[in-house]
C-alpha cells in the first residue's frame, strides 16, 4: 500500500509543482505573488477546450497553440492590470491579483458553464507499473515536463540577459532601472512566460482532474504550500516542496484521516514561515535595502 500511496502522491505533487513553477517565476521576476495564476491557467485551458471542441482543431495543434495563447493571456493581463499599478506599493498589485482570481474564476463559469468536462489526454490511459505501484502515463508526463521547465528556466535566469535583468528588477527595482534595465519589459515577459507555463500545465492537469471552473482552487493552495516549503525563490526547491506535499498529503489521508489532508498543507505553510521562512532549499538572504 505504501508504494502506491507514495507513487500517487508524487503524481499529485507533480500537478502542484507545475503550477508552483509559474508562481515562482513571476515572484522571482517582479516580487509579486500572483494569486490569479491558477485561474489564468484554468481559463487558458478552457480556451484550448473551446478550440478543440468548437473549432474542431486536433489535440496536437491545440497543444502547439497553448504556449502562445498563454503568452497572450499573460501579456494582456499584465498590461491591463499590473502596469497601471507599477509605481504603487507592492501590496496593491497583490490585492489586484486576488481580484483577478475572482474575475477569471467567475468569467469561466459564466462563459463555459459550471459542469466539469472531460479533457482528452495526450497519453494512453493504460497505467504504468513501477515497483508494484500503478501510475497514469499522464502523471509521468507531468513529472517530465516539470523537470524540463525547471532546467529551461534555470538556463534562462542564469545565462540570458533578460533572465539576469529580471532577477535584478525583483531585487531592487529602482537600482535595476538606474542600471538600464527596462523593468516594465521584464514584468511583461515574466507574466507572459508564467502564463504560458500555466496554460500548458492546465492541458496536462485537466485530463486527470477534469476541466471545470474550480479545478485550480486546491491546486493553487497546495502549490503555494509546496513553493513556500521549498523556498519561494527557488525553482527546483518549489518542485521538491510540491512533491513532498503531495506524498505527505496522501500518507496523512491514508494513515491519519482524510479529513486532515488539507489542513495539514496549511499547517506546513505556517510552520515553515515561522521557523524557516526562506524555505528548506534556499539559503537565507538578508533583505537588500
Amino acid at each position, binding site marked *: *500500500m505504501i508504494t*502506491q*500511496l507514495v507513487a*500517487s*502522491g508524487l*503524481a*499529485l505533487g507533480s*500537478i502542484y509543482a507545475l503550477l508552483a513553477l509559474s508562481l515562482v517565476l513571476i515572484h522571482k521576476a517582479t516580487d509579486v505573488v500572483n494569486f490569479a495564476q491558477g485561474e489564468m491557467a484554468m481559463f487558458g485551458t478552457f480556451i484550448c477546450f473551446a478550440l478543440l471542441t468548437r473549432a474542431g482543431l486536433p489535440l496536437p495543434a491545440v497543444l502547439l497553440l497553448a504556449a502562445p495563447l498563454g503568452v497572450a493571456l499573460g501579456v494582456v493581463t499584465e498590461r491591463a492590470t499590473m502596469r497601471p499599478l507599477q509605481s504603487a506599493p507592492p501590496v496593491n498589485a497583490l490585492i489586484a491579483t486576488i481580484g483577478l482570481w475572482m474575475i477569471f474564476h*467567475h468569467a469561466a*463559469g*459564466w462563459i463555459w*458553464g*459550471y*459542469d*466539469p*468536462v*472531460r479533457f482528452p489526454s495526450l497519453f494512453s490511459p493504460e*497505467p504504468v507499473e513501477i515497483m508494484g505501484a*500503478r501510475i*497514469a502515463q499522464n502523471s509521468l508526463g507531468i513529472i517530465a515536463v516539470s523537470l524540463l521547465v525547471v532546467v529551461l528556466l534555470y538556463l534562462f535566469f542564469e545565462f540570458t540577459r533578460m533572465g539576469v535583468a529580471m532577477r535584478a528588477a525583483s531585487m531592487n527595482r529602482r537600482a535595476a532601472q538606474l542600471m538600464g534595465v527596462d523593468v516594465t519589459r521584464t514584468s511583461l515577459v515574466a507574466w507572459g512566460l508564467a502564463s504560458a507555463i500555466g496554460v500548458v500545465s492546465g492541458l496536462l492537469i485537466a485530463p*486527470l*482532474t*477534469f476541466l*471545470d471552473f*474550480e*479545478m485550480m*482552487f*486546491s*491546486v493553487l493552495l497546495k502549490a503555494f504550500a509546496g513553493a513556500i516549503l521549498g523556498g519561494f525563490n527557488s525553482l527546483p526547491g518549489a518542485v521538491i516542496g510540491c512533491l513532498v506535499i503531495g506524498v505527505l*498529503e*496522501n*500518507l496523512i*489521508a*491514508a*494513515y491519519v484521516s*482524510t*479529513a486532515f*489532508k*488539507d489542513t495539514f498543507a496549511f499547517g506546513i505553510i505556517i510552520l515553515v514561515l515561522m521557523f524557516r521562512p526562506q524555505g528548506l532549499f534556499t539559503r537565507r538572504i538578508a533583505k537588500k535595502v
Partner: protein
Amino acid sequence: MNGPMRALLAVTALATAAFLFPGATRAADPGVTKDKITLGSFLPLQSGLAAGATQMREGADAYFKSLNEAGGVNGRKIEWIVENDSYNPQQTAAVVKKLVDRDGVFAIVSTLGTVTNLAVLPFLAQRGVPIVNPAGGHLLLNKPKDKNVFGILPLSSEIGESMADYAVGKLGAKRVAIFYQNDQFGKDQRDGAVEALKKHNLQAVGEATYVPSDVDVSAQVVSLRQTDPDAVILGIIPKHAALFVKEAQRLGWKPKIIGHNTVADPVVLDLAGPEALEGVYVNLMTAVDGMDTPAVKKANEILAKHYPKTKPGYYPYLGMAGAMIIVEGIKRAGDDLTRAKLIAGLESLGRHETGLVPPIEWSASYHGGPKSFGYAQWQGGKLKVLQGW
C-alpha cells in the same frame, strides 16, 4: 357623525369583514387572475450548484411552456418567475420577499438548496405561501411539518439506508465500505448506511471522505481498497464519483459500487468513460434517461422541444416533477383558486405517480418524500434499470 369619521368607520368595517371572511371580499389569493397564475422560484443560478440549478429550471420551465401551449390549467396560463439567490441564504430571503410582496406570486415551486430553502421557510409559513418541491436534504424539507410545505425528495439518510440494504440484501455483500462527501449531504447518507448495516449485524469495514474542492481521491481509494470490501457505497457528487471509479480502474480494483442518484448523471459517464463505470449500481430517486416508460418519453420530448441542448437527467426531471405536481394540485383546487384550496388539492393527491420521481403519498398528515427507490446499473455506457419503484 361627520364625513371623515364616517369614512374611517366604513374602512374599518370593510377591513374587519375582509379579515373575518377572506373568501367573501377577495375573489382569489395573490398571483391569480382570470387567465393567469403567477408562480415563483429561487435557484442558485450563479454558484457551484449552478449547472444543476439551470437544468432544474429548464425542466420545470419546459413543462410550464408545453402546458401553456396546450391551454394552461383550468383555463389559466402559468407564469413562472425564477430568481437567482447565488446559493446565499441572505439573498434567498431578499428574493423571496420580492417574489411574495412585489410580484405577488401565488405559490413557489422547484427550488434548490438546503440552507437557502431553510432560510425562507418561516417567512413562507407566516405568509401562508405554498412551496412545492424545495429540493434539499433536511427534515423540514423532506418530511415537512409546515402545512404549506410539500417535499418530493427523500431524506439523505434514507438513501444511505436503502443503498446499504441493497448492497447486503440484493448484492450479498458482507464487507461494506463507505466513501462520502464530508458535509451534511454525505454524512447523512453515511449515517443511514451505518444504521442499515447494523440491522444486518454488520459494520462498515472502511470509511473515507473527500471535500468538493478535492481534485484527487487516490489516497482514499488506496486506503479503502486496503480494507478489502466486497461493496463500496458512494455518498457523492458526479465529479468525485468519476474520480473514484477512474482511480479504482487505474489500480485494477473491482469492488461492487453502489452510488447515490447523482452517479446516474450523464456527466459521470462523460467524465469517467464507459469502462470505468461498467457495473456501477445507482440508487434512483428520479427517472433516468434510458427508462422506457411513456412518462419519461413524454418528459424527454418536452425538454427536447424547449431546451434542446439540455440532457435529460436528475435535475431536469426533478424540476419538472415539481411543476407537474403543483399543476395537478391547482387542477384539483378548481376554478375558484386559493392557497388553501391548493394545499387541500395537494393533500388529496394520495399515492400519485408522475413517472419522473418515485410515487409520492401525500395526505393531510404527510407532506414528505417517497419511501421507495429504484436501482439501475451502468452497462456499456447505458443505465439499465434493475428495479423500478
